[in-house]
């Protein structure tokens, strides 16, 4: 029955509510960055699922996929696997992401060095463009 306890609890609740009601410019920037990070994380999660489907065909499960993972050297994907990946991307994102065009614009060395992270960035960017347009 200490009166300070309910009072303190009330104060704690009020602080975040106040912040949400009156966001300042300073608060909005980190929220934007956080959203971008959340986008990348969810796209990476999508891609990890697609790659698991692909690699499963080779009897490989449990392959760790990170942003710096390369399609060629690390995952040993062949060009026909990239066709399958294009199909999986289309299933998930529709016309908003065009993987064939993304790759068609690249030189051989770029494809050999292509990382999961670069594709994640491309997908996030394509989704943003589609949303804006």
């Amino acid at each position: 029955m200490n009166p300070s306890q309910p009072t303190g609890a009330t104060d704690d609740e009020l602080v975040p509510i106040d912040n949400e009601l009156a966001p300042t410019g300073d608060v909005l920037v980190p929220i934007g960055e956080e959203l971008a990070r959340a986008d990348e994380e969810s796209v990476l999660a999508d891609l990890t699922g697609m790659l698991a489907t692909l690699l499963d065909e080779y009897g490989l499960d449990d392959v760790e996929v990170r942003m710096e993972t390369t399609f060629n050297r690390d995952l040993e994907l062949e060009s026909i696997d990239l066709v399958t990946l294009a199909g999986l991307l289309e299933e998930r994102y529709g016309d908003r992401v065009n993987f064939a065009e993304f790759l068609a614009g690249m030189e051989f060395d770029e494809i050999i060095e292509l990382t999961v992270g670069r594709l994640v960035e491309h997908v996030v960017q394509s989704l943003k463009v589609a949303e804006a347009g």
Partner: protein
Amino acid sequence: MAMVDTGDVRLHVQRMTPKGGRPVTATAVLVHGLLTDSLASYYFTLAPVFAVSGIDVIMYDLRGHGRSERPESGYRLDDHLDDLEALLDRLEVTGPVQLVGNSFGGSVAFGYAARHPERAAGVSLIESEPATAGWAATMDGVLRQVLTELAHNEAAALAWITANRSQNTARLAKGAARLARETTLARDIPVSQVLTEDQIRSVRCPVLALYGGESALVERAPWLESLLPDCRTVVVPGHEHSVLVEAPGTVGDHILSMIGEGTGKQGVAERGSAERGVAGRGVAEFARVEGR
């Protein structure tokens, strides 16, 4: 991924169609080459450019290749023609189509036009020729080499390829060796039924034949031109057998022009390729075909 069951074999098919309600001016069927090749050689190169130009593009993996089923036998040219015939029937593509083939795929494309002249609007051969007795002898030599060097001395051959080419090429070669070992392909193709000169002459649709200037096959150009009623040959200087993967922009432009002439839409073809420039060279090289 679309799989089409022809009744005999399950084939992996990809289709790219013009987007945004753009009218379809032609249907093209793209046929890839042997062993290390798959529809991927087109998927990231000619296909997107063709689709932008108003062409309905159909690509498939030959039996045993890419994502298609790999039966143990049935790899003669006629088996591949039966597959293509059944595939187009299943897809309900009944009108005349533009046939495009790279290397062995060109022999399939031409064979299809000879078998069904009414279904061929045009044939584009990339580093290829109709299947003749001479062709069969050449294929026999090439495939014997694959069998002896890769299938029987695989470890040594792969070590050499890794050291002198790349790990990527070695991976493709390994896949090719597996295909040669697990199927009758290398024995079947050289004993295919081939075409007579009269049968070759009977293909009256426009034929475009593209060759790399440094390729041995370029010698076939005058012979083809003399035989076919409507044939144009193009030599791309500075390239060998892999001209499709080394210069997809040039190859695509020539084929689009020919298809455009057939449909009276030349301008469309030119605009389509100009939008893209030299498309897909990187991926094409990634899927690079070593040999034929």
